[in-house]
């Protein structure tokens, strides 16, 4: 019965885990901005989140109403495990030392990801607050 209460948090919790993974990934790229031969990595956040939350039931799973829609049922990930599929960034300007970190893009992604992480935190906070006020009934 209790999982009915926490079910609503599951999606946001996994999104938060993924956001922190991506934050670390971008931090690695920024850290290796001067390493020769380093290839910048990034993840397709939408697809990874879909894969990570595919096993969650309820209204949060993506419903397919058209033959062209991409369903989320194919994802076999369960539990809190997040398997991010890492992609290589295409360099905007090539470098003599084969390093593909684009600092401008990384900085932008880092700020973007930080804001979205905070947004997810707020979603969880407000959801908790809503449930608390429902429990106390005041």
């Amino acid at each position, binding site marked *: 019965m209790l999982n009915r209460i926490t079910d609503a948090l599951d999606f946001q919790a996994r999104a938060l885990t993924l956001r922190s993974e991506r*934050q670390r990934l971008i931090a*690695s*790229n920024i850290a*290796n901005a001067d390493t020769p031969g380093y290839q910048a990595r990034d993840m397709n956040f939408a697809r990874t989140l879909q894969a990570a939350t595919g096993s969650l039931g309820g209204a949060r799973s993506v419903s397919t109403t058209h033959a062209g829609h991409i369903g989320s049922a194919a994802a076999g990930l369960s539990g809190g495990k997040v398997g991010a599929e890492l992609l290589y960034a295409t360099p905007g300007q090539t470098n003599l030392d084969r390093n593909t970190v684009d600092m401008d893009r990384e900085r932008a992604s880092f700020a973007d990801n*930080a804001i979205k992480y905070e947004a997810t*935190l707020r979603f969880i906070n407000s959801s908790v607050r809503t449930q608390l006020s429902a429990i106390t009934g005041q």
Partner: protein
Amino acid sequence: MSMLSIFNVSGSAASAQSQRLNVVASNLANADTVAGPDGSAYKARQVTFQTQLMGATGNDPTAAGVRVSTIAEDQTAGRKVHDPKHPGADGEGYVTYSNVNAIEEMVNMISASRSYQNNLEVMNTAKTLLQKTIQLGQS
């Protein structure tokens, strides 16, 4: 907590950059050093960075830190100046200075300091986010 290893990643990068800055400082300090009694002057040094995976399992590509792999000496010949009155002049009256190129070193210094700042900012952001995560659920 995968966010906590951001401190390891960015910390290793900041430490590598500070080592690079140290090497630049020694190079600039020795820019005008002349050859000693052994006949060889100071040689410019250059650090080389290498990626170091530092996740919980040790092979996680999402936590890629940096370490200094080698500090190589530039083997090109030093600058020679004809100055027979100089106490360090050789038999033909030439003084051998170090092979430090001050302009290259200044560029290296600016690049290192910018990278250092970037990594500090990453750590600051991670700290803010973690603080907010700790306060999760407390209204």
